[in-house]
């Protein structure tokens, strides 16, 4: 089973990289970009019997390592 994990910064956590990208977009002439938030996508190939088991594994991995829940949220998508 394939799982895709999206890790994003929590609301309220300043994202200096997103801010730099927003400035760069503005200087390229893209007007009206309100906010840019950067994140990560992590693809996992899991040895799991079904989607539910894969989701449980990926969730445990997020809590143990893949996301820092002090500053990040995560979402698991099973493909």
């Amino acid at each position, binding site marked *: 089973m394939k799982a895709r994990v999206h890790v994003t910064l929590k609301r309220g956590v300043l994202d*200096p990289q997103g801010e730099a990208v927003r400035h760069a977009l503005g200087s390229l002439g893209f007007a009206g970009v309100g906010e840019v938030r950067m994140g990560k996508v992590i693809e996992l190939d899991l040895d799991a019997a079904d989607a539910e088991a894969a989701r449980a594994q990926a969730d445990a991995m997020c809590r143990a390592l893949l996301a*820092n829940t002090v500053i990040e949220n995560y979402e698991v998508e099973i493909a």
Partner: protein
Amino acid sequence: MTMRAGVVVFPGSNCDRDIAVALRGAGADVAMVWHKEAELPAGLDLVAIPGGFSFGDYLRCGAIAARAPVMRAVVDFARGGGHVLGVCNGFQVLIEAGLLPGALMRNAGLKFVCAPAPLSVGAEDSVFTAAYRRSEAVTFPVAHHDGNFVADAGTLARLEGEDRVAFRYRANPNGSMHDIAGVLSENRRVLGLMPHPERAADPALGAGDGARLFAGLVDATTSRALQGA
């Protein structure tokens, strides 16, 4: 009585020997501890987590190192009242391991900062600041890309209220909240800081402010051990 210190070495650590030299210079007996070790050498008074780019800073700075086998032993050591010092990447590792609060994010200016950092000594009543006076001005070098200390309002209020900000920037180089450069754990026995005291520990390198941190640390931990405290 000699203070016994262990310096943890991860793949990508690059200040491990510097911190060992600084500790030995202060009179400590130092053992290097490889990250795959599941146990620490017996009888340590201090564990130091050095600077560098452990595991290439992959995923998040310090995240993978914080899950290395040796870190379970370091967490147990700290929970049992042991002294732990984390510098730069070592500070990131201690936060990722849950021994210190908050998070260290990309510098607000997005640039790697490498410069002498003027600091003000904050918290008293810790073995790490034993050699300094409160509000004393000292300078340690900084060299990092991810030293922007972030915490929620409640955590910041606790750190301030409990006098746990051990070092504060006098000219904030990275956007850290409350100019925080280093924080203590609740029991005041774990210190993480981004600036490098070990790089200000040899007169040949132009500064001695950091040497006093190690001298005070060795002095305080050995005299406490003698008192059996």
